């Protein structure tokens, strides 16, 4: 009878079969079967329709790198290299449209592929399998966690950068005539943007000696009541600086919000659209705009 015919008697772990020895054994197994396991994993990724934004070659290349990093992390018990790799990978794949669930999905698939491989290897020694899994589980969990968190952190970093870029684009105070300023606002206004807007406007009034300001809200669909209140305060503060404010382009939603917060609309100077607002501003400043009849040559612009 060969050795495998006798059922193995569960033995108490010998003294040198510590967690690290088990891990080493595990890592050796994973390295030995690297090609097959990696292949199986790549196939399961495709079957689960994950990473569809990438080509098969790309998936294979990344799978190789991740596999090796995974085994490396298991072996060394340190996760810095893996974390750095995860962030690097995220930086590359996020612009390609890869989602969080895909990244978490592929890591969990790898975990499954490797676990099943362990089950297959140690199926005749249930006690040893248990001990191997005891060594494998925490490390595998930590790896899945590290990769997912790395991915999410990278996403958050990108979002913050984009928000900052949007804010910088956001609130120009434009001088269109002597003493006439326009503040066209486009998009959503959050508290930070509202504060920035007010600061730029008030300093702009001082710097250009603005007498009339047209604040155009055509590009703003709605605001909540605290932002609406902030806008009203901005108008009042501008008045303290001696400027008249004309608000244009109020959407029905914003008009409703202003009414709800109890703004005395008699005190607010509003005009339907930007064109009307500029025309009124010009009148207030004493400008008159004259259109030449078509066969007259308009005078040349001043040098």
């Amino acid at each position, binding site marked *: 009878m060969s050795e495998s015919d006798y059922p193995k008697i569960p033995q108490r772990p010998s003294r040198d079969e510590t967690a690290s020895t088990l891990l080493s054994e595990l890592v050796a197994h994973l390295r030995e079967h690297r090609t097959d396991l990696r292949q199986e994993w790549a196939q399961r990724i495709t079957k689960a329709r994950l990473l569809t934004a990438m080509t098969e070659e790309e998936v294979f290349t990344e799978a190789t790198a991740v596999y090796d990093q995974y085994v490396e992390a298991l072996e060394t018990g340190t996760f810095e290299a893996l974390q750095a790799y995860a962030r690097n990978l995220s930086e590359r794949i996020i612009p390609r449209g890869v989602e969080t669930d895909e990244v978490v999905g592929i890591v969990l698939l790898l975990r499954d592929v490797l676990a099943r491989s362990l089950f297959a290897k140690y199926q005749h020694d249930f006690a040893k399998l248990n001990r191997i899994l005891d060594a494998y589980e925490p490390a595998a969990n930590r790896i899945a966690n590290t990769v997912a968190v790395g991915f999410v952190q990278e996403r958050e970093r990108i979002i913050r950068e984009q928000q900052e870029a949007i804010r910088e684009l956001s609130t120009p105070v434009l001088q269109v005539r002597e003493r006439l300023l326009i503040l066209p606002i486009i998009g959503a206004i959050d508290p930070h943007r509202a504060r920035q807007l007010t600061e730029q406007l008030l300093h702009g*009034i001082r710097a250009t*000696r603005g007498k009339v300001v047209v604040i155009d809200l055509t590009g703003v669909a709605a605001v909540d009541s605290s932002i609406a209140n902030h806008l009203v*305060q901005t108008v009042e503060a501008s*008045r*303290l*600086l001696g*400027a008249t404010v004309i608000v244009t382009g109020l959407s029905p939603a914003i008009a409703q919000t202003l009414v709800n917060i109890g703004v005395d609309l008699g*005190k607010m100077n509003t005009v339907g659209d930007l064109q009307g607002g500029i025309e009124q501003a010009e009148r207030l400043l004493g400008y008159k705009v004259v259109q030449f009849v078509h066969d007259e040559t308009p005078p040349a612009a001043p040098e």
Partner: protein
Amino acid sequence: MAVPILKQGDVLIASIQSALTDVDLVELRDALVEKVSNYRTRGVIVDVTALDVVDSFASRTLRDLAHMIRLRGAKMVIVGFQPDVAFAMVQLGLTLEDISTALDLEEGLAFLGTQH
């Protein structure tokens, strides 16, 4: 500390140089009202460029001043609010809505020039 009050034709200009205590504010108010009576003044400019803070007492005193001057048939205009001060004031609800304001001295004089 007394605030210097200059006379330019029929306009008085009070130029606040530094932070004012409550007592200083009341003295300024009284000094201006007296001078308006003595000089047949048409307009008063209060320049608050140097003020970092305008609290509710200052705000109330300025409003009282404006009303008292109006009772004497003159107009008052406040000039020189700093952007941060202006916004802090409106957040506290000190909007000074019935008082004329202008950007600076030049604008203030131009405003009074049109008010006959």
